[in-house]
């Protein structure tokens, strides 16, 4: 990430003030607020066991369906389990599935997309045809069918959703690479003796990276929604393990007695997704500077 941070710093859009002095335009305070929020969620879920939280699966029938109290900051659910603890542990599932699945999609779909766009010809035609076939399947239905047969293990869900995201990533990365693969600087690099791998990694990748990063973040958000949908249908990780989707699904029954139960996991998911989308968008604008220049 240090490379990207350096690029953000040096390539930030520039705006001249009245003295004609160019100042680096900042990414905006919202960018940092949302980045802070995402960092907080990620850190909290990784460090959950060290935070001194109550056991997320520990039932306490003396305190069921409570609103926020000092003992339970976000209240308790129908079994008296601590919601704060469950929201934080539940984030682990969403994050593993979200980032894991998109990483699988990026590694395979991204590599295929770049190679296909660079090589063109038979490779491109074949992989593109396969991607169209995969995209023609309604992803949610396909994922539901496979999960139902194969199992609800978090890793299996990650792999299945990851595979389902490959054709999407492939199309985006291929399109982004295509517009650079025919530029003269690729020929120029070749004329200096660069190998194909070098051209792909050192000439093309830096150019498509901004698009890839923002699509990755938006993709993570989509996958988290998909996991929520699976959980709502009872096809994600199984109770009592908490996930944001599971918690929302379970809260349905008690919606009239205890609306807090639905509110907190929904709020966590909503804020996390909106943050990912906005970060992705800001990054794309900042990193894409050379196209908007002059």
């Amino acid at each position, binding site marked *: 990430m240090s490379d990207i941070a350096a690029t953000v710093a040096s*390539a930030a859009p520039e705006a001249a003030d009245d003295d004609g002095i160019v100042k680096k335009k900042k990414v905006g305070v919202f960018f940092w607020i949302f980045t802070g929020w995402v960092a907080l969620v990620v850190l909290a879920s990784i460090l959950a066991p060290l935070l001194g939280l109550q056991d997320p699966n520990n039932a306490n029938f003396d305190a069921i369906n409570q609103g926020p109290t000092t003992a339970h900051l976000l209240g308790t659910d129908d079994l008296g389990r601590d919601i704060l603890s469950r929201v934080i542990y539940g984030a682990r599932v969403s994050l593993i599935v979200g980032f894991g699945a998109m990483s699988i999609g990026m590694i395979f779909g991204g590599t295929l997309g770049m190679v296909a766009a660079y090589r063109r010809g038979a490779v491109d035609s074949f992989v593109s045809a396969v991607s169209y076939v995969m995209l023609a399947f309604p992803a949610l239905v396909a994922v539901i069918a496979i999960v139902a047969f194969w199992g609800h293990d978090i890793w299996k869900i990650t792999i299945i959703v990851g595979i389902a995201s490959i054709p999407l990533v492939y199309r985006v990365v291929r399109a982004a690479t295509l517009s650079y693969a025919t530029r003269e600087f690729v*020929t*120029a*690099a*070749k004329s*200096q003796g660069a*190998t194909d791998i*070098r051209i792909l990694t050192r*000439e093309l990748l830096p*150019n498509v990276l901004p698009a890839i990063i923002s699509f990755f973040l938006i993709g993570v958000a989509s996958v988290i929604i998909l996991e929520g949908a699976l959980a709502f249908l009872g096809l994600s990780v199984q109770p009592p393990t908490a996930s944001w989707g599971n918690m929302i699904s379970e809260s349905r029954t008690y919606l009239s007695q205890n609306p807090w139960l639905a509110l907190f996991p929904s709020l966590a998911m909503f804020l996390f997704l909106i943050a990912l989308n906005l970060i992705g968008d800001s990054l794309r604008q900042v990193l894409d500077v050379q196209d908007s220049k002059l």
Partner: protein
Amino acid sequence: MSGELVVDEGFPTEEETQGLLLKVTDLKTSFATPRGRVRAVDGVSLELGRGETLGIVGESGSGKTVLSRSIMGLLPRRTTTQSGSIVFDGTEIVGAEDKTLRTLWGAKIAMVFQDPMTSLNPVVRIERQITESLRLHTSMDKAEAKATAISLLGQVGIPSPTERVRNYPHQLSGGMRQRVTIAIALACSPRLLLADEPTTGLDVTVQAQILDLLSSLQQERHMAVILVTHDLGVVATRTDKIAVMYAGRIVETTTTRRLFADMAMPYTKALLNSTPRISDPSHTRLTAIDGRPPDLINPPPGCAFAPRCESATDQCRTEAPPLRPAPSDPTHLFACWNPLPGGTAGRVTTLEESP
């Protein structure tokens, strides 16, 4: 850091400067297109000695760019058909694998592209664009390569090179960018530099600077240069030999001195006359060559220039003239049935003024 190059391993020794560097024999390059086969280069032969400068001149679509890319072996494999032979420093280029070519590319033969706006990678620092091929072809480590990059930038006339290496291309002007592309091409001290319209995208004042820079670097390094251009004025003072191309063929070739003193092809004359000159009064109409270059998919029978030629006869329209030596000088070749009368010097006297 002085302006001198840190590495000198690439400079040729005395005996290496003798003899032929490049020999192109009956090269034909054609492309498959939806309309049919385009014969972009149609039977070109030429020779280039070490340290020599050859100018390839022709209007748009005459095949000069395809010729230079053929010599580099840079054309897309799938749609290109080639025959004939290109021998560079003992290596056959036609039909060679990328693996073979990669040992030449950058190290022994390099190219300066037409448009520095597109031939530099917009998101990679100047430093890495220069050091890339140094790291690839020489045993330099990172620090040595960086020092060489800075020294190269100094040699191509970029002020404060130590700071400039950290820049991205968009932070440089057009002329500076072209200097950077020259620095990249020269990084590994190639034996042959192909410059494909290196000044077309630049300001007139910068054009002359870039061309002078190329000439001085060439003499310093005893490097052969092929200068591809549409402008006879550009090659007039900076080349040893000139080949004039039309419709994929060389139509006239000889030493630069002789070409301007005694040009035989009406096309060469027409090209020269269409160059604007500072000595002309203002609002002088440029002499254009009427008509268009021929369709390279279905070339006309006879001389390709005949439809546009003032002195064309029936023979020109039916029978293609062979490339043959002039009676007075066997090194002066031209393909014309009705060459210009001897001593036609055009307006050579004013050529020195053009960039």
